């Protein structure tokens, strides 16, 4: 029976990998990402959006070929999606009271944002490596 319990706990970790439910890590990581995002969003609003948001395909590729832009975009994606996942998790915890729906929504928020982050980072890399 012990191996069954351990397997269930391990599976649970993959469904929602939070080591404890006291919220300490949540609080801390939310603050760290918030501080990191402040300068990044000043950059995004004042430099990236005016230059790139209405650009055409070739222009945008050229813009993202610049390593400085690529690195800043990379950081913005990492911190944004981390911060987003934590914020959405708080909203789910507050407003979805049914335990099964709550768990399902947390699963979707966590793995959805993770998948989006990994794919977007891969896209940034792919553009950077293209000649």
């Amino acid at each position, binding site marked *: 029976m012990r191996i069954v319990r351990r397997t269930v706990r391990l599976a649970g970790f993959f469904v929602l990998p939070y080591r404890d439910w006291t919220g300490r890590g949540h609080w801390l990581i939310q603050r760290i990402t918030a501080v990191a995002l402040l300068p990044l969003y000043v950059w995004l609003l004042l430099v990236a959006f005016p230059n790139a948001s209405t650009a055409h395909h070739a222009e945008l590729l050229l813009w993202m070929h610049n390593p400085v832009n690529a690195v800043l975009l990379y950081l913005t994606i990492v911190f944004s999606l981390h911060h*987003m996942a934590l*914020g959405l998790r708080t909203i789910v915890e507050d407003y979805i009271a049914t335990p099964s729906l709550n768990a399902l929504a947390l699963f979707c928020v966590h793995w959805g944002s993770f998948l*989006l982050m990994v794919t977007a980072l891969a896209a940034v890399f792919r553009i950077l490596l293209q000649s």
Partner: protein
Amino acid sequence: MTRTQPPHKGGAAELRPVSPHLQIYRWQWTMALSIIHRLTGLYISVGIVFLCTKIIVLGFGDANDFAMFTQFNSLKAFLVLKAFFIWCLIYHMLNGVRHLFWDTGRGLGLKAAALSGYTSALFSLLLAVLYWCYWL
């Protein structure tokens, strides 16, 4: 103390009402600012998902896919959504700075909290209008 499972799995705890007890509080403006912080966060999430999708289309698709993805970008409705996104971002940033100040234990009094709230709301509108004039 370390919990090993979510709090709502604790039997009697399941029957307790969930967090924001909006019905039993007297309405206050600072409350609205806090709710707006959450709503703007939600809307920014939608925008971030959109922007990430755009990057993914750019990275893994060709010029045709990108043109298909951006075909609605010149619509008036899209411009309105974009302008609203800008304001949400500025408001969430300013109010977020307020939250970070609170975390250091400063500005938690009634007067200070109200003043900083009104200031951040007003400035977010001002900066958003400035930004719209400069960029949109």
